């Protein structure tokens, strides 16, 4: 059988096999075993068959063969005519197109062939009858020949363009339109369409505006934006379209649809930026007349924004090639119209149109240096005169605010301090008004009544914005402004003013750090007292200093000054509060630096040895130390050390940790101690059993520092197990709770990071077994002294999903009902799941994904079961443990188990423990929204308990009451109306009492809650 015949037989039964047949045929052609002529001959009878499906299949075969041929094989005329012949035949359109695509890709496809194909396609297709898939192929063929043989098509003259436009008329399919738009763009740009411009334009513009909405699950993934972008490219690509486009666009701008308006404005912007300047010069007047309306009377910020873009684009286009202000230029005419209009509006600066007018002015001012100069020269004299004539402060304020965008525009054109780009060659026109502006904005800020906050803010903003502009104010002028701001930060009674002034100083600290260091720092430091006083005397100043010191040179100055101050304060026998604040401000800056991606490890030398030495030396002299050895201050010092060490690499960390171990463990001389090394080595024994409380407490610093080490760092000890044993032993007889917590954290950190070998784990199993034996037989929390260590070890292990944690936690759960230890164990669960600042991922601890979830899943069933069996006295231990766990896991986890937990949560509301109560109510609040159905079943008892919790008592603290009211206020919106409405009267009545709560914050919640329930409407009478 002939291959054609074989193919026709196979195609319906097995397309795969048919494809194989065609491929084999192609191979034979390639190997010259077959010539094309005989193939076409053999197809002949099918191609003329009366049955159109057979005709189509035959062409399909032919096309498949052609596609499989290497592109260089066929000589030109071969095949083309055969395949084109049946183009009038609608049956095989798809197959014909496949064939054409194959032929057009052949290297010997000739210009004449291309013209022939184009003519046939354009002539013979009534495309709208075809399904969109077939049309797609036709467009692809056109696309292909347009890219392969563009010159040949151009030679066809306007026929091609008009033909194409007719071909694609009324096409609506987005995928097809994507091809059409890109082809049209080629035609517009490269073809001679002078005679049919309007026709081509209409072919594009008839799609404007695109209203297509992408259907869900759209297989082609074409968005409305894709279509808009392609269409816009067609419209903007030729200036010749302006004559048709702009009038029609402006007509469409009257549309009520925001979408259409937005599209119109974006198109105008795009065209203004690409059309020739001479064209825009013809149209700016009509464009401006319509577009300004969209800004001045905007109801929609988004649209106003687009309109401003368009106004700016026109100015940009008209600025082309201009280097100086020219009175006769089209730009000048345009800007004269714009500025005149805006100036008129701004005469009454409180009117609605004033602010939009100011936006317009700044929009044109950023278009180019010349536009900036023209605008500034045109408006500033007028604005200043108007300002001088204003009497009401509200109007003056609005005027000052209206000029602010112009300063931003100037900064955009002329750059801000520190910019490395060259400024425009044209002089900054704003300079002529510099003194006047400085004067009126300064007067507004410093010379008006303190109550005029928004007026003063306008002054402050103006000065800030002008100070930013490069080469505008001289340094002494900015220095004066910095002094104004300093004064406000230090003395103003309005928070808003202080915050804004500080914000401005922050901006200036980046642009002009030297001025901040020279002016602000001395002024602020002078405000800091030399001895501890009421905290108000230094907190705001320190806060301001800390915020200003993120830049490196400024921070260096801050460090010097703070350390000096610290010396003075300590010499004056300060309490811990002030030194705490001084160090906290250093910590704050380090954190900020770290957050903004700066390397803070380089600050080690300046800070860490200094602080550790200052803390330890007094303790080594046999005294009980100074304020630096207060636990709160030790925590800050530890945090500072931890943060800096964390940022170091392995090598540097190894070195620092080595030194730290010398001080705290080995008691040898260390390089960290900057003076009296020998005394420290001799006298400082924080891990000694008979050491003082103050020396022992410094372990807080040590634990924080060691916790920050990377896992690759080897701790400088021969026997880590022995060291942990020693720490556990110390933790059983702590000098203070803080001391114990530091020891336990240190144990947990070491175990979590370093106890990974089988030997280490065997050691842990053995020692926790021993601890458990001791705990189990204890008869009071005091004698069960290993209990805390057990919890912390379990925590360290659980975090890395270590199975060793399970037996420990299991045993602890088992003694919740123990009458001597149950209470302590219940509280211990707070440790288990809470986030610990030292044992964290940032500190390189092993924190496995889902470790909390695992622990939660492990504990909850045991807790629920134990709770049911427990004596009534022990029940609250279970609730305490449960509450600690729930507070520390994502609410999603809790919700998964809420069926079993809800009864326990409800009972926990009856406990006499504010903490548990608040936690349970918070969980319930999530539950109400997330598990409304379940809550509905318990609604009655829930409402009773929440109302009870909202009345003041020893247990129902402000937090409990607020939480209860907040929870109640969720009900009306979260639950079904017929579930809640029966309770409305009860609740409205009961809430009258919290309306009279002694605490304002509770009353506020009550008012809100009552309003929500009130809004429910009336219950039906028969309810």
């Amino acid at each position: 059988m002939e291959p054609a015949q074989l193919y026709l037989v196979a195609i319906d039964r097995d397309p795969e096999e048919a494809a194989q047949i065609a491929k084999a045929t192609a191979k034979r052609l390639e190997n010259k075993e077959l010539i094309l002529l005989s193939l076409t001959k053999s197809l002949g009878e099918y191609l003329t068959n009366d049955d159109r499906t057979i005709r189509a299949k035959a062409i399909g075969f032919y096309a498949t063969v052609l596609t499989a041929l290497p592109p260089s094989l066929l000589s030109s005329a071969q095949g083309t005519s055969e395949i084109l012949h049946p183009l009038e035949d609608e049956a095989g359109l798809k197959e014909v197109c496949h064939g054409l695509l194959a032929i057009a890709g052949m290297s010997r496809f000739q210009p004449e062939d291309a013209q022939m194909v184009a003519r046939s396609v354009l002539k013979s297709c009534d495309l709208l009858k075809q399904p969109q898939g077939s049309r797609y192929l036709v467009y692809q063929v056109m696309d292909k020949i347009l890219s392969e043989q563009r010159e040949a098509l151009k030679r066809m003259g306007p026929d091609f363009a008009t033909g194409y436009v007719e071909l694609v008329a009324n096409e609506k399919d987005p995928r097809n339109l994507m091809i059409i738009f890109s082809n049209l763009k080629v035609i517009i740009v490269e073809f001679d369409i002078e005679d049919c411009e309007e026709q081509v334009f209409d072919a594009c513009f008839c799609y404007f505006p695109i209203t297509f909405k992408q259907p869900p699950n759209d297989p082609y993934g074409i968005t409305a934006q894709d279509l808009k972008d392609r269409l816009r490219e067609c419209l903007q690509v030729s200036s010749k379209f302006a004559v048709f486009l702009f009038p029609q666009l402006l007509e469409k701008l009257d549309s009520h649809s925001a979408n259409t308006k937005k599209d119109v404005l974006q198109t105008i912007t795009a065209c203004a930026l690409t059309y020739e300047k001479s064209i825009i010069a013809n149209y700016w007047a009509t464009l401006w007349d319509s577009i300004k309306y969209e800004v001045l009377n905007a109801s929609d910020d988004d649209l106003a924004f687009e309109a401003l873009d368009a106004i700016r684009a026109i100015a940009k286009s008209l600025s082309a090639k201009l280097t100086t202000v020219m009175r006769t230029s089209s730009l000048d005419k345009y800007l004269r119209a714009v500025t005149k209009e805006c100036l008129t509006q701004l005469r009454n600066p409180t009117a609605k149109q004033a602010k939009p007018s100011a936006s317009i002015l700044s929009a044109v001012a950023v278009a180019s240096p010349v536009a900036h100069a023209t605008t500034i020269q045109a408006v500033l004299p007028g604005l200043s005169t108007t300002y001088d004539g204003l009497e009401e402060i509200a109007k003056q304020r609005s005027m000052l605010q209206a000029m602010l965008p112009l300063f931003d525009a100037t900064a955009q054109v002329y750059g801000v301090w520190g910019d490395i780009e060259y400024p425009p060659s044209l002089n900054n026109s704003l300079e002529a008004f510099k003194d006047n502006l400085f004067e009126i904005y300064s007067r507004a800020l410093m010379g008006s009544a303190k109550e005029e906050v928004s007026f003063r803010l306008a002054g402050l903003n103006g000065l800030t914005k002008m100070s930013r502009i490069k080469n505008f104010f001289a340094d002494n002028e900015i220095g004066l402004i910095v002094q104004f701001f300093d004064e406000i930060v230090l003395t103003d009674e309005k928070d808003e003013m202080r915050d804004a002034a500080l914000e401005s100083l922050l901006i200036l600290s980046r642009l002009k750090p030297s001025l901040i260091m020279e002016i602000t720092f001395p002024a602020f430091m002078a405000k800091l007292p030399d001895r501890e006083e009421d905290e108000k005397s230094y907190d705001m100043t320190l806060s301001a200093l800390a915020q200003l010191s993120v830049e490196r040179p400024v921070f260096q100055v801050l460090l010097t000054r703070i350390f000096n101050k610290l010396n003075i304060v300590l010499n004056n026998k300060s309490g811990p509060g002030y030194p705490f604040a001084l160090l906290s401000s250093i910590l704050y800056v380090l954190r900020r630096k770290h957050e903004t991606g700066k390397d803070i490890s380089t600050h080690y030398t300046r800070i860490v040895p200094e602080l550790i030495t200052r803390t330890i030396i007094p303790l080594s002299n046999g005294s009980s130390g100074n304020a630096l050895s207060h636990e709160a201050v030790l925590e800050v010092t530890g945090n500072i050390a931890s943060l800096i060490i964390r940022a170091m690499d392995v090598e540097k960390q190894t070195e620092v940790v080595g030194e730290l171990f010398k001080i705290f463990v080995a008691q040898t001389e260390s390089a960290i101690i900057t003076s009296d090394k020998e005394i420290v080595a001799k006298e400082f024994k924080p891990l000694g059993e008979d050491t003082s409380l103050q020396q022992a407490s410094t372990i807080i610093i040590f634990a924080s520092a060691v916790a920050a080490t990377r896992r690759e760092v080897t701790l400088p000890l021969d026997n880590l197990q022995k060291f942990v044993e020693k720490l556990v032993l110390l933790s059983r007889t702590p000098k203070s709770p803080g001391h114990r917590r530091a020891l336990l954290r240190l144990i947990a950190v070491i175990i979590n990071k370093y106890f990974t070998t089988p030997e280490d784990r065997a050691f842990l199993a053995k020692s926790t077994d021993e601890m458990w034996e001791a705990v189990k037989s204890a008869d009071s929390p005091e004698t069960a002294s290993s209990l805390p260590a057990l919890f912390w070890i379990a925590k360290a292990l659980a975090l890395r999903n270590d199975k060793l944690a399970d037996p420990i936690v299991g045993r602890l759960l088992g003694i919740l009902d123990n009458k001597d230890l149950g209470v302590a164990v219940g509280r211990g669960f707070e440790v288990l799941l809470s986030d610990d600042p030292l044992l964290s991922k940032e500190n390189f601890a092993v924190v496995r994904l889902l470790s909390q979830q695992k622990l939660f899943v492990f504990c909850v069933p045991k807790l629920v079961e134990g709770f049911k069996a427990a004596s009534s006295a022990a029940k609250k231990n279970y609730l305490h443990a449960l509450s600690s766990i729930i507070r520390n896991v994502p609410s999603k986890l809790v919700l998964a188990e809420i069926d079993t937990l809800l009864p326990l949560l409800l009972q926990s509301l009856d406990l006499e423990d504010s903490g548990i109560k608040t936690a349970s109510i918070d969980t319930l609040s999530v539950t109400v929204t997330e598990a409304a159905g379940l809550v509905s079943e318990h609604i009655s008892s829930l409402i009773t308990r929440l109302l009870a919790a909202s009345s003041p008592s020893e247990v129902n603290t402000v937090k409990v009451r607020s939480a209860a009211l907040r929870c109640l206020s969720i009900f009306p919106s979260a639950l079904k109306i017929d579930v809640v409405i029966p309770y409305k009267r009860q609740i409205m009545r009961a809430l009258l009492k919290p309306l009279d709560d002694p605490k304002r914050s509770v009353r506020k919640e009550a008012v809100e809650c009552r309003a929500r329930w009130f809004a429910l409407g009336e219950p039906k009478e028969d309810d």
Partner: protein
Amino acid sequence: MSDIINANPTILNPSDLPTRSESRKKQSSSAHIADKISRLPTSKSLLYDPFSYYPGEDSAYSSGGSDQDEDDDEDETAAEDIDEQEIYDLISTISDPEHPLSLGELAVINLPHIHVTHAPPTPQNPHPMSHVLVEITPTINHCSLATVIGLGVRVRLEQALPPRFRIDVRIREGTHQSTEQVNKQLNDKERVAAACENETLMGVLSNMLATCK
């Protein structure tokens, strides 16, 4: 309400409205940082250790590393009376029926025009009656919406104040051409009750009250 009665009222800037000054830590970011830097942790949270618990102590949930709650260690016992600022906060956020602005911003409600009086509590009567007088200033003196605004204020206060408060809402002397008439309407219990039965009116009111914070 198709015709706007006062199309161009004077507007106060939100930052110029009176607020309770003690809430500074909530308003100002800088003050918040100041607080963080200088607030020495209370010994309670610093020394807090679940393993050294003494019965009777608050279990100090605010410790344990979460610093978000640390700043409201409020004094549990000190009572805070309902004062003028609190009344102002309740009603200044009501929306004007014809502008998308609050009564505070339009200076219809002003702090100096609110008066709260508490009778001293006696052993026989620990919760004596209190009285609140709110004088509203219409934006223009022929404002026909003054009654509606007054009613809105009244309804809001009735919902938000405990029953021991007597509420008096009046038009400020000399700010409206028919002050007396409006005042009569606003303080006549039966007329107010009748107004609250009117569904259209209640619709307007609930829109006004929807913005209350």
